[in-house]
């Protein structure tokens, strides 16, 4: 890890700790005050971020970028239906492993801070498209209407899963993952759907 990346990570962690302790609404936290609470010079933060919103956006994008890369590579390498099925399952595993301890704060910010809302909407569209491709490949033979409806259900389930995982510890995330994957599988195998 490069030195400046280490520094950036340290700033993010400290910022999240301070924000959590302050128990304030995110948009009311003044940036200079945050630097004071974190006990680091103000210009050290502004070297990387210009606002609280920037810190959250950075975190949101960091996880999204990694998942997107994982999905793109996985889709490229998925030759068989089983590969695609495995890709969907491992995506959720990768996702929970990537979520930081403060993901509840990032989740919360994504509902209000404008840039974070924008990113949230963008990535939701992206996931919808990619999930559709994976389902089509992994569970072939579905007509378009069924594919669309099942994709929506998987997408909404994934967002419920995200909300849950953002608020629980790493151990609980892993516990529910197996059940969650089983349930998604069951749903996608459902031949009686419609």
């Amino acid at each position, binding site marked *: 890890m490069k030195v400046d990346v280490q520094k950036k990570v340290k700033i993010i962690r400290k910022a999240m700790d301070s924000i959590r302790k302050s128990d*304030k609404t995110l948009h009311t936290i003044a940036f200079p005050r945050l630097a004071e609470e974190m006990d680091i010079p103000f210009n050290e933060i502004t070297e990387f971020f210009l606002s609280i919103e920037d810190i959250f956006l950075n975190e949101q994008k960091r996880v999204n970028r990694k998942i997107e890369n994982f999905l793109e590579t996985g889709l490229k390498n998925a030759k068989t239906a089983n590969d695609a099925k495995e890709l969907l399952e491992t995506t959720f595993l990768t996702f929970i492993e990537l979520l930081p301890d403060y993901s509840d704060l990032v989740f919360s*910010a994504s509902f209000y801070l404008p840039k974070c809302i924008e990113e949230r909407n963008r990535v939701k569209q992206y996931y919808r498209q990619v999930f559709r491709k994976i389902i089509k490949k992994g569970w072939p033979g579905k007509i378009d209407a069924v594919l669309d409806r099942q994709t*929506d259900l998987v997408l909404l389930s994934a967002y419920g899963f995200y909300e849950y995982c953002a608020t629980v510890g790493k151990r609980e995330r892993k516990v529910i993952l197996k059940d969650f994957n089983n349930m998604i599988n069951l749903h996608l195998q459902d031949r009686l759907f419609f």
Partner: protein
Amino acid sequence: MDRSTSNLKEKVVNRAINSLRKDKRIEQISFAAIARELGVGIEEISSFYTSTEDIILEVQKKNWESLHRYWDRHIKKANTPGDFKNAFELFFERFVDTLSKDADLHLELCCYLPKCIKYREKNRQKVKQKFKNLIKRGWPGKDEKVLERQTELVTVLFYGFVDHVVHIPKTERTKILRDFRNMLNLHLQDRKFF
């Protein structure tokens, strides 16, 4: 509370929501401006609410309390597994039917404002407890562990459903509700679960 107070409170909520819809910024909401628009004194508004967060929290509580009352009536009347299944399904139906036109905005604020997040978490536990009771009696014969895990999954999915359904047009909500309920049913009927 008399009718005029109740009407005024409703007007205050509507003004605040309209303002949020336009600016998307909580800090832009001014009690003075709302009071001016409604032709009442600012102290009258301050006697009900101390902040915008209070306004949103009250709407959140009011909506959920009403939903719980409806739900409890059906749970109380239920005797057979069929009745309990019905009470389980009616909850989702009622939830979708009673969503306001500003449900998207409400959800975003409820996931962001600290007091609303706390209430949301408390309510989530309450909803989960009711799901557990209904699953136990609507789909009898599950051991405690399975019951716990299936309840957790249903709760996770429900919250994903909430996030999805408030962001789509009213006409599409009913369609996805049907698919969502089918998915839950399939999951709860799954005898191979474990």
